[in-house]
């Protein structure tokens, strides 16, 4: 179980508890957090579950693989060094307290 915070572009935040083996993307879907489309359902195809991990984050996140890296070239909003696909971020105790920022648009 991990507490995940989704911060919307307008400043509002949604905090939800997500259980393993879900992902940060699915945590948003299960709790009806707006702003993550995930049209491909989490198979790293579409780039519509793009999030920015908070700059101050020190929690251990998995390394980005080459597919995720490639898909991030196609996001609707600018890619930054903090960009990740939320479908590629598995939820577990070690990321309890993660804060991610949602982009203005996903598609």
């Amino acid at each position, binding site marked *: 179980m991990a507490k995940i915070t989704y911060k919307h572009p307008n400043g509002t935040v949604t905090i939800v508890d997500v259980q393993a083996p879900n992902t940060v993307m699915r945590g948003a879907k299960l709790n009806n957090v707006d702003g993550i489309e995930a049209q491909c359902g989490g198979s790293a195809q579409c780039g519509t579950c793009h999030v920015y991990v908070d700059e101050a984050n020190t929690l251990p996140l998995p390394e980005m693989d080459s597919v995720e890296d490639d898909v991030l070239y196609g996001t609707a909003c600018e890619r930054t060094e903090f960009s990740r696909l939320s479908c590629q971020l598995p939820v577990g105790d070690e990321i309890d307290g993660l804060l991610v920022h949602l982009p203005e*648009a996903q598609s």
Partner: protein
Amino acid sequence: MAAHAVVVVGAGQAGFDTACALRSRGFRGRITLIGDEPPGPSYRPPLSKGYLAGTVAAEEIALRPPSFYTEQDIELLPGDRVASLDRERRTVLLESGLRLPYDNLVLATGSRPRTLPVPGASLTGVLSLRGLADAEDLRLRLSGPPRRLVVVGAGFIGLEVAATARGLGHDVTVVEAQPRALARALTPTVSDRIVAEHRERGVRVLLGREVTALFGDAEGRVQVMELDGGERIAADLIVVGVGVLPNIELALAADLLVGDGVVVDAQLRTSDPDIFALGDCARFPSPHAGRHVRVESVQNASDQAKCVAAAICGEPYAYTAVPWFWSEQYALRLQIAGLTAGHDETVTVGDLADGKFSVFCFRGGRLTGVESVNRPADHGIARRLLTAGTDLSPETVREPGFDLKRLPRTPTTPTASPSRTTTQERLSVHA
């Protein structure tokens, strides 16, 4: 708010997303979602892939947990169907006897598989794959010892089923009437690569061959498929994937304009302005195709849902989203951005031999679509370029060392992506 009661007929991706998009926009009226497929809205793509292989569980394909519908005040009526529609009184009558008034009706009735027009097509063991029940049936039949499976139709569904079944160790044959696979959807370069992959994996692929009849045993179980020329193939199981037909019966009975699908305008309104149609069942004017088309994809369902919700909320816009599709077969990641049919020029980038390449399709010198095999960056960037209307000439793509990743990023103007009109500040626990 223009409307206060919205009835959505069909709880597939298009209907479900319409209900969600209405609430996201701040619509506070009544939303009723009618679906004939219990238990409720589910995500279809894994049905021919992970769900069929047994690696994705049923609860993972539910689009939302049951609590979602209560929280969002969406009245979900799974397992019910519309019996009739009264446009004058603006009510629908359900088979359960329930009568629902509407201000706006949304037809998201989807499509159903075509059947094989040959003798023996109704034998036991001849299946098609559409909904969860079909997938469950097929999954059970594929979960045992190796069987002889024949897939009719080398389209996306047929080839995905073939790849999944082969991965499970079954003996698989694919029979396709066209001279190549995915002939309507893809360029020969990509369809040839896909067929080569199937053959390398041990699938027998027969192209340009017609099925003429199916024969069964005394109990009515399919045993043999006969092809043109008389060749016979032994089969324990046949999966028919020869396209779909839009579910237009309700619209027809209500005297709405129908063609190959329910005909809608750029805002997805039918010939009755209070009624919308979207997703697989809708035939809409596509600026990308330059004509009316029906598109069967998750992207189309999801993006059209935003358009319908906006119109119901009084902020209509024309549906112009760039179509995109994907398929996964073995380790092939196939992605299509835009519409590639009708091109007059192609340029292939990458390496055919190592199986990582993209085919750029042009019409009159303008980029209309990109088909990518294991080149996900090309796909994403192409979608962005097509959305922004950025010009990319065949000459540019042909230049040695051309790489989409090195193009300067052009600002994207998202296609009328609806803005959030509600905020949520809550702490919720999902158990």
